[in-house]
């Protein structure tokens, strides 16, 4: 299992475990972490699973996928260089301990 910590806008943290191959988005939904809507179910049709990857982890989460940038432009909360669609980050053993910050709003 791979640990992921979600940091809410109020600073509170939730650490849950996900399966290798699952996304940071689906792990949040499956573990009942609020703050990710994921309206399109991971089809890259919306920007409601926006998260900010902790700067220490961006090397390991890699670059944005094709089209991800364009979807992020429509995110409800401000986007920065650490912004990703959490549906596009797949859990791998090297992401064990990953930290992501959730935005104020997704819709």
């Amino acid at each position, binding site marked *: 299992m791979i640990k992921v910590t979600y940091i809410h806008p109020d600073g509170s943290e939730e650490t849950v475990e996900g399966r290798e191959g*699952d996304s940071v988005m*689906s792990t949040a*939904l*499956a*573990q*009942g972490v609020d703050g990710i809507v994921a*309206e*399109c*179910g991971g*089809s*890259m*049709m919306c920007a409601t699973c926006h998260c900010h990857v902790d700067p220490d982890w961006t090397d390991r989460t890699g670059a944005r996928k*094709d*089209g991800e940038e*364009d*979807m992020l*432009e*429509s995110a409800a909360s401000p986007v920065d260089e650490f912004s990703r669609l959490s549906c596009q980050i797949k859990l791998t053993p090297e992401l064990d301990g990953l930290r992501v910050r959730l935005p104020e709003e997704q*819709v």
Partner: protein
Amino acid sequence: MAWGPPPARVVIVGAGQGGFQAAASLRQEKFEGEILLIGAEEGLPYQRPPLSKAYLKSGDAEALNLRPAAFFEKNDVTLRPGTRVTSIDRDAQRVQAGGSEIPYDHLILATGTSNLRPTIEGLDRALDLRTLVDAQRLRVAMEDAERCAVIGGGFIGLEFAAVARGLGRRVIVAEASDRLMARVVSPEMSARFADKHCEIGTELALGRTVTSVSSGGIAFDDGTEMPADLVLLAAGVRPNDDLAREAGLACDNGIVVDATLLTADPAISALGDCAAFPDPRTGRMVRLESVQAATDHARAVARRLVHGTEDPYAAVPWFWSDQADWKLQITGFGRPQDDSVRTENGAILRFDGEVLSAVETVNDAKTHMKSRRLMAAALTDPGAGLVRDRLASVGYDLLAL
């Protein structure tokens, strides 16, 4: 309607994407009353779009759940799966379900659609692809099928066809109309997808009517037959509006609602695929089959019930379909008679008279998202003017606006 306090007890009929979202949005809007979510299918509410895409390949049903069981407990939403509502008593404000009478202060109908069943001999041999149970059955049938025949060249039929081809099956798609996805895309986009499906080795039978399904395959009205071990029926849907109709609510291609998604009965709303509502752009009554409409409707209904917000529903529709390595994205919706203009970068702009009605793109998220923003702005400010002349002046390049 004068706005009183929020209802004490909201009953939602239909636990698909729209019904689920209504429950979730009510809680997000801090609704403090009771929420009962009644679904005809067993299990937790799940996403339908992947049933004809990722699920067919992975078979991972758990990944489809919209939320885990704990979500419903945590949010105090009473989920009653496997329960069919059989009637509504509007005077007494009660629904009949599974032998019990369930009272409501407000009722939300989110009953979705059912597959259309055209008159075809032996049609009960064909499989459906509407529910998780359907998809599970289809996956099993696909394992042994060498030849698959699909009745209907719309999104679902074509998504299935592309997956089946990808798994090495021989596939034929029979479509009664002379082009694919005729109801939802331009003739140009239909042609592009026809080429794509031919290129990956799918056989298309356009303008051909299937008259019978047998153990050997399908037969057309001209007497020719096509062998098939598996036949999928994907010939469109009809709204599940019987419950509303029998309760005396107006239905016309869906449960008729006003711009706030309320029926003529102030205690009953309808949303998603089953609802016919005034299109914010044209005022024409429309019914959309999409995740976007279901979830945006649900949020609007929740805001109205909790805060009394009566702003007319105003969201730009969007749709998508994954077929092989092509992602078709549509903003707005055109009618079959709308004009189309193909832009240099491959997007297709559709015009209802002089006004932009839809934008169709393939693997072009940038233009798609830009069109969503532009069309949303035009809804609130008609002066923003997405009209032909203005768009022509920039070579129909939305990114230049």
